[in-house]
């Protein structure tokens, strides 16, 4: 505790007393994130308001050997911001400035606490486009997006956060600035550190400045909603669209459980007897959009679609999208606890995965609604349960184990979007190898010899 009092003093000297929190009630609010995991209350929370303060805070933690975790909006789904025991939480919320938007060289420079949606809106107001759009974008921070390599609905055509990160400046454990990448399209100076920092889940360095690539926005788009009696046909449609060299900007699927739950939630007249819905959107030059929309329509028909509805105007498009937007809220409203998974398989294995999910739901007697990014094989099997029911919870945990085993056996991955953190660390070796784990632990130990930067995550399952 004496050590604690000392570090509080040091922090107060750096950021001012108003930005250091030590009361139980304030700290309890940093004991969790969006993952369904036990909470852990930190001993101090500190909120630097400048880059220099951030550096000094890191330096103090290192000097004292105090473990700490950096926290953006705390929306990650894998426990990445649950602090170490007796640790410090460093908040990036006040580092929320967009430093530059360069319309000539098509890049932007941001502080890590900038909210994703605010950034995307600012970019759009300049007539440019920042595509990564995680479902949490209204609140998530760009620092968190980089640390988790966040994806979104546009992943298939436009890629994910790592495809837009051109450069990153971060603090090492001594609070010294490491700069990497550049403002140019091409850059081969040294290791690809932006690549290393992406998905580092706050374990290798503390981000201070992020340089993102911007692109011109598409000029037109066409959305459509296709209804299927057999999920296999929906899955075949997805493959056929890609085989025909069409890259929709959205290619989303919803299974029957999800359709029924959404309809129970909003009564929008969805076909509750359908096996699957596909929400498809193509974008680009108006002529190309028209062309591709017609081709997609044809493909859907060839693959046995029941009906297909084309958006006539913006309002109609909004209506078609509503079902997909409702997917998570509807499932979340259905039962007290909602676990959003993101096991991902190669596109060609999607229908096998959907089948497996149905089997797992039955075998473990749990409820799984599946929706997600069909175009990139990134499904969101969503388990609705009540974590207070111990017996059911056991079955849920076993079911989740089975989901990951299945995804890996189909050549897939544990996580397409949500990261490893605490919640998936125990499965890491199954996807990789013991040598991988050791190599990564070695890397971490070299950069963070005291093991204080977000310890216990990813490779310590």
């Amino acid at each position, binding site marked *: 505790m004496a050590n604690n009092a000392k570090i509080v003093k040091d922090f107060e000297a750096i950021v001012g007393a108003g930005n250091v929190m030590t009361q139980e009630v*304030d700290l*309890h*609010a940093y*004991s969790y994130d969006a993952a369904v995991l036990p*909470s852990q209350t930190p001993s101090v929370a500190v909120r630097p308001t400048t880059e220099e303060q951030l550096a000094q805070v890191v330096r103090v933690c290192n000097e004292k050997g105090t473990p700490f975790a950096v926290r953006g909006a705390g*929306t990650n789904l894998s426990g990445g911001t649950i602090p170490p025991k007796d640790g410090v939480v460093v908040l990036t919320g006040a580092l929320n400035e967009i430093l530059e938007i360069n319309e000539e060289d098509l890049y932007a420079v941001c502080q890590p606490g900038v909210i994703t949606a605010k950034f995307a809106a600012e970019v759009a107001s300049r007539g440019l486009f920042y595509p990564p759009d995680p479902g949490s974008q209204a*609140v998530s921070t760009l620092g968190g997006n980089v640390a988790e390599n966040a994806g979104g609905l546009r992943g298939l055509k436009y890629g994910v956060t790592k495809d837009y990160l051109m450069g990153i400046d971060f603090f090492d454990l001594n609070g010294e600035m490491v700069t990497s990448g550049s403002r140019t399209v091409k850059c081969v100076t040294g290791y690809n550190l932006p690549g290393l920092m992406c998905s580092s889940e706050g374990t290798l360095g503390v981000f201070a400045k992020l340089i993102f690539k911007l692109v011109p926005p598409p000029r037109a788009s066409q959305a459509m909603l296709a209804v299927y009696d057999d999920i296999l046909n929906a899955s075949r449609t997805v493959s056929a669209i890609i085989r025909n060299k069409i890259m929709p900007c959205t290619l989303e699927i919803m299974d029957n459980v999800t359709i029924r739950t959404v309809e129970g939630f909003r009564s929008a007249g969805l076909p509750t007897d359908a096996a699957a819905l596909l929400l498809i959107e193509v974008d680009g030059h108006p002529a190309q959009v028209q062309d591709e929309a017609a081709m997609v329509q044809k493909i859907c028909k060839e693959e046995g679609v029941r009906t297909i509805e084309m958006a006539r105007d913006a309002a109609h498009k909004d209506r078609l999208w509503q079902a997909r937007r409702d997917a998570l*809220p509807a499932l*979340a409203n259905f039962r007290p606890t909602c676990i959003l998974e993101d096991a991902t398989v190669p596109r060609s294995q999607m229908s096998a995965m959907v089948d497996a999910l149905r089997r797992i739901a039955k075998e473990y007697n749990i409820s799984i609604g599946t929706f997600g990014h069909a175009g990139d094989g990134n499904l969101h099997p969503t388990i609705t349960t009540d974590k*207070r029911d111990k017996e059911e919870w056991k079955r849920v945990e076993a079911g989740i184990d089975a989901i990951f085993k299945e995804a890996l056996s189909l050549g897939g991955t544990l996580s397409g979007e949500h990261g490893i953190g605490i919640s998936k660390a125990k499965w890491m070796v199954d996807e990789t190898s013991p040598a991988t784990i050791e190599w990564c632990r070695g890397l971490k130990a070299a950069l963070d010899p005291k093991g204080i930067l977000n310890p216990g995550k990813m490779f310590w399952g």
Partner: protein
Amino acid sequence: MSDIHELIRLLGELDDDLVGCMRCGMCQAACPVFAKTGREADVARGKLALLDGLAHEMIKNPEGVKERLELCLLCGSCQASCPSGVHILDIFLKARAILTGYMGLSPVKKLIFHQLISRPKLFDSLLGLGSKLQGVFAKPVSDVLGTSCARFHSPLGDRHFPHLAAKPLHKLQKELDEPKGSSGLKVAFFPGCMADKVYPQTALAALKVLRHYGVGVFLPSGQACCGIPSLSSGDESSFETMTAINLELFEKGSFDYLVTVCATCAATLKDVWPVMLRDPELKVKAKALSGKVLDISELLVDKLGVAPIEAAHNGRKVTYHDPCHLRNSLKVTAQPRVLLKANPDVEYVEMAEAASCCGCGGSFSLAHYDLSCEIGQRKAKNIVESGASEVATSCPACIMQISDMLSQGRQEIPVRHVIEVYAENLS
């Protein structure tokens, strides 16, 4: 009650509601308080986690939890954007009552709620006295806005507050029980404290419009406060007393709808009464009444068919602020705008962030005036930037707060109720 085990037991009853929060954090985007402080304990997710922590004995500081819980406008923006459909406001109100039961009501609030507001007659006569004396204590700041600031040091600090009406509504308008009018409709009218005591012109405008459309009015005298100020301070017993008075009064009339000119009253009557009342008989009555509650703009647009008309080109520019309780609880946003567009002398302009909170939040603005101002100043800035020469809104509390914010910035932009703007063109 002052037994911590009893406190934990009562909080445990909230468990079924609390467990619905999946800690997704999406409420951060909506919360006006969090936008200013950036502290997780101030956003709904944090507040719910604190209650959960207290209930499960992970936190041992009920005073601290109560303090965080009260740093809240009860605006409902979090609830409106919550993907998990958590009944956040119900939880907050119940938790405030439980924590106040544990810690006791402050002596000042006890006096105000138990002895004053829950006795409508006494309240009215005391305020009547106040309106005569207020000139002695306050100097007028702005004639356009009708605000004053305190002459001497007062608990209201720098606030530019409105005058109490020289004559409240209940002195200007006798009780009414008319037959259905030519429209075939009859409504009960609930003006609420503010439109009765501070802004009677709002209530009079509403009555004028109802008369114009041939709507019969039931206006019983002796109406009490809707109860939300007491309830949000955790005083359930005064809330129950006032609600009982009101339910009994309205039981005596027959009417198609119950109409208000106060967004906060409307939300309280519609959503809070049926959930928060303990007396089972009152609860049943409140549930029956709930379905009849309408904001005046809903009645005019949805039931009587008022529609926008072509605006005159040289009309004055009027903008609209969405009161949280109308937008989040009643989901009414289009109808008030239609009423403004139905006045031929008005050119409607939309302000930026019309839907964001003005920062009033009832007693929040008294207890946390600085924060309330910070939130309100942004609203004032958006109003000024809209280029409007007048602001309209649908809640007297917002009118008071926005007038204060504009007055402090020496911006002479009048703030009026939508119904006043609409009524000015009817004969």
